[in-house]
């Protein structure tokens, strides 16, 4: 169980890293910078504080954060071998919890 959980966490860290690249490397660094200095968490803490990561993205991109989060979740699901089915109202945390549950089984 713990080994699987850490697998999801690692996959999420990678998915975040790759997903944020849509902003370019400097854009990604700015997001990590804000996470560190405004919310006191590093990129490796995103799996344990996804709600803070969500808030950070929304503070920068407004509702545009959804697009980045969707890219991250799609990437995460691909890494975990899960099928991504889009819901009408995309919610980053819900998708993440679903991935955790599915990988924990």
């Amino acid at each position, binding site marked *: 169980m713990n080994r699987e959980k850490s697998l999801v966490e690692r996959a999420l860290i990678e998915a975040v890293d790759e997903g944020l690249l*849509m902003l*370019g*490397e400097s854009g990604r660094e*700015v997001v990590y910078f804000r996470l560190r200095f405004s919310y006191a968490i590093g990129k490796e803490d995103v799996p344990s504080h996804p709600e803070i990561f969500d808030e950070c993205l929304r503070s920068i991109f*407004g*509702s*545009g954060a959804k697009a980045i989060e969707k890219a991250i979740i799609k990437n995460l699901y691909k890494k975990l071998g899960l099928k991504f089915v889009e819901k009408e109202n995309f919610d980053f945390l819900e998708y993440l919890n679903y991935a955790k549950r599915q990988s924990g089984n």
Partner: protein
Amino acid sequence: MQKVYVLSALVIIGLALFYIFQGCYPDLMYLFSNAFPPLISGMAVIVSGLSLERYWRKAKGPFSKTWLYFTAGLFFWFLGEAVWAGYTLILGVEVPYPSIADIFWLAGYIPFFVALYLYVKIFGGALTRKTLVASMMATIVMTVIVTVVLLAPLLTAGEDPVTLVADFAYPLFDLALFSVAHLGLIIFWKGKLAKSWLFINAAIAMDTCADIIFSYATAQNAYYCGHMLELLYHFSYLFFMLAFYLHTKEL
């Protein structure tokens, strides 16, 4: 960042005062009216180029491509301004419209539109179908209004077909930019990037108003170098610079 706003406000006030009191220095005004646009548009290219350098990761990345197109669009507009200045200050043509300068100006709309489209497309998933439909309706209504407002005065002015096409092309191309730019503002409204998108929209709005007035004024032979409408063009470049500067500060 406050310093940038104060500096911009001072530039706006300074330009407005300079245009208001132009009767006191008509020769200087003529020179300024033609020499200042290449300067301010060149500065906009530099600011956009610095943003491009910052965001450049690789040519195929959508975000870096966006800034390449923004810079290309502004560079074409700079060429348009430079050619206009060449006509007026070197060749002595009073109002070179339409001219080769218009080819550069109109060409600049293409990369600029692509830039806005690519940027908004990256985050487009955040827009609801309802928002997109409302936005499309608003764009159609605005296009109809602008066309109707310009139609009678331009058609009765007896201009040649090329001038007529240019008269309509500028405001309609502006509206095409606006139709995408306002979506960016909607997407980023609650985020830190909203300020940057607010200035992009303000710049395009200024351009739209300026182009409508320019088309009308030239058709009525009422345009001259130093016309107050030029302020809108200057403010537009200033707002683009502010938008790109703020973007690099926030992201």
